[in-house]
């Protein structure tokens, strides 16, 4: 009889175990396992210190211009995030979902996609939205309560934010099946789909079913799990015994853990995964090992459940700083470039503030609009009755 030790913690040579594979007694007692190390399988191309390193399976040829572009993306989306967070504090947004710390995971994944690929986000994917050409102002209404996302998901190939944890994974699996049924898979011109979810979502049945569906239909789908270590207050250890990327093996497709704070590694791994999918070798699971540097949302208080030591440790792994160091060291960017990006960020922040504070409330009719594609006479009657009631107040006293 095999011991549980054998199959939950495989031998290092067989399948190198990563973080959490063998917790220390102290970690077990504390209910925590080390989260700051990605383990031996972590794909990294740019260290936190800004050193370019080689990986036997993944590499990327990147030009100075491309890397400056990725840096700019990350700085701008971080500014969007901080600005929106501040707008919530000023009462202009009901809530905000910060992406702070996950810029490399999102920009790396987003920039790996082609315009013909499709993306299914969760609700923290502001960086992915940015790479799909969605103006950050279009995210604000969701959190201000004026709309539920205004972009055209078909034109942008970016599905609406999905708030029910894990639902979008099945929706993405279905879409990817459609790409395959349409004959859009099989060569370099093929299409692929990306699906974004977090470590917490991996416990959802829909994610399990999404893995099953994509696997049995060979769907061109990249499952992109941002393991930011925390599902509100619950550490990843509350979701899994096994490092998340290793789950893929049980479903019969590859799982790769990438340094989610390394934009180059994330870009390289995601490009590879998307190419595999468009050639018909999907699905693939990517676990982007990263950290949620801010609260779950503006309503959350992380000081109640995690230590500031952990945060300090992750600050040293900042996704933007390492690129800046590398750009400077390579002499790929000068002070003028960095100042230019800062100025652009200031401008973007101003645009967001201006837009947000001037957003009109939707009219009452909006309650009733587009519930159905083909209408509903009973609902129309209810709307008319309500609007008639409301019009009774027009110009008069309430």
């Amino acid at each position: 009889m095999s011991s549980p030790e054998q199959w939950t913690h495989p031998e290092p040579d067989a399948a190198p175990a990563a973080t959490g594979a063998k917790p220390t007694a102290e970690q077990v007692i504390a209910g925590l396992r080390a989260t700051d190390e990605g383990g031996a399988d972590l794909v990294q191309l740019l260290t936190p210190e800004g050193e370019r390193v080689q990986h036997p399976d993944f590499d990327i040829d990147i030009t100075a211009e491309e890397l400056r572009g990725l840096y700019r993306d990350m700085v701008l989306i971080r500014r969007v995030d901080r600005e929106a967070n501040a707008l919530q504090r000023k009462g202009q947004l009901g809530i905000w979902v910060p992406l702070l710390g996950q810029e490399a995971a999102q920009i790396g994944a987003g920039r790996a996609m082609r315009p013909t690929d499709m993306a299914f986000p969760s609700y923290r994917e502001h960086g992915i939205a940015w790479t799909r050409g969605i103006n950050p102002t279009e995210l604000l209404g969701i959190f201000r309560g004026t709309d539920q996302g205004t972009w055209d998901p078909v034109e942008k190939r970016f599905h609406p934010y999905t708030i029910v944890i894990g639902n979008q994974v099945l929706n993405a699996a279905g879409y990817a099946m459609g790409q395959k049924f349409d004959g859009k898979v099989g060569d370099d011109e093929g299409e692929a789909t990306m699906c974004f979810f977090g470590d917490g979502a991996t416990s959802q049945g829909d994610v399990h079913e999404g893995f099953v569906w994509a696997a049995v239909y060979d769907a061109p789908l990249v499952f992109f799990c941002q393991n930011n270590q925390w599902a509100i207050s619950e550490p990843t250890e509350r979701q899994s015994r096994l490092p998340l990327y290793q789950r893929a093996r049980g479903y019969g497709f590859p799982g790769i853990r990438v340094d989610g704070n390394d934009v180059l590694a994330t870009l390289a791994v995601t490009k590879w995964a998307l190419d595999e999918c468009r050639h018909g070798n999907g699905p693939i699971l990517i676990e982007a090992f990263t950290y949620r540097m801010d609260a779950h949302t503006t309503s959350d208080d992380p000081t109640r459940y995690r230590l500031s030591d952990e945060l300090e440790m992750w600050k040293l792994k900042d996704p933007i700083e390492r690129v800046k160091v590398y750009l400077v060291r390579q002499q790929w960017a000068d002070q003028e470039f960095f100042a230019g990006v800062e100025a652009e960020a200031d401008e973007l922040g101003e645009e967001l503030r201006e837009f947000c504070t001037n957003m009109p409330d939707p009219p009452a009719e909006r309650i009733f609009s587009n519930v159905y594609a083909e209408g509903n006479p009973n609902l129309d009657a209810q709307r008319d009755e309500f609007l008639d009631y409301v019009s009774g107040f027009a110009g008069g006293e309430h």
Partner: protein
Amino acid sequence: MAAPTMDRSTAAAPATPVQTLTISKALNMGLRAAMEANPKVIMMGEDIGKLGGVFRITDGLQKDFGEQRVLDTPLAESGIIGTAVGLAIRGYRPVCEIQFDGFIFPGFDQIVSQVAKLHYRTQGKIKMPIVIRVPFGGGIGAVEHHSESPESYFAHTAGLKVVSCSNPADAYWMIQQAIDCDDPVLFFEPKRRYYEKGEVDTTAKPGALFESRVLRPGTDATLVAYGPMVRTSLDAANAAAEDGTSLEVIDLRSLSPLDLGPVFESVRRTGRLVVVSEAPSESSIASEIAARVQQECFYSLQAPVLRVTGFDTPYPPSKLEEEFLPDLDRVLHAVDRSLAW
């Protein structure tokens, strides 16, 4: 995909436009017609391919249309609905089979959170032309979870449309109309009536999908039913006629939106209404009808609206289902109470 020259020997090729069919066969032919009319129509479900479904409603479809249009899916209802959402976004018109009523609940989250709300969330930029077929109701002597009537959950959910067929002609046409509809439609099939026969005219232009219909005119009281209880109500009306009581029978057909115009018109004439449904009565379709009728027909009512329904219990062990399910006698008993008010 299906070979362009498919084997027509098993395909529907009616010699005459009017045929006598079972509800089961009419549904099968309706699905086939919808698949022939639109290559984007696909079937998804458990055991619907080679087996043709546990009730054989999709019999022969995979053979003729191929495995990419009739999908034997993994065994998970949330997966069936959730992937149908993605396929619909991609331009397909998925028709999902839920094997039995009591198994729809794992898919409930996807139905309520995504299927029902995506059109609203995107203000019309995404449509959800998905049909979810549900064999429903009891009377077949089955084990637990195989005899339920969950339609009220879905009628209660904005964004969904809910219909139920009661006869072969409606089965043939309504399933095609549901597939043509750009809104998601829950399609409840009266499983214990699958093998009842009736005439189907495959050339007759059908009326609108979301309309109720007077099946039998009458003057003394009105019976409203849907799905399997339509047959029960018609039988009750026949029996009542022998005693000289004239009952009007209305088949709702559409449970959401409710088309109550014909019901109001009828109640204004008869002054009495009995609603018949297998589902438990509390917060049900029957309750909604009672509420609306009292609002619209207050001065016409000669008696309170009565409901003859399943009881407010879980579906009982099958040896007790004859007592649980409304039958001819319980319907007539309610009619008598109404007339004696």
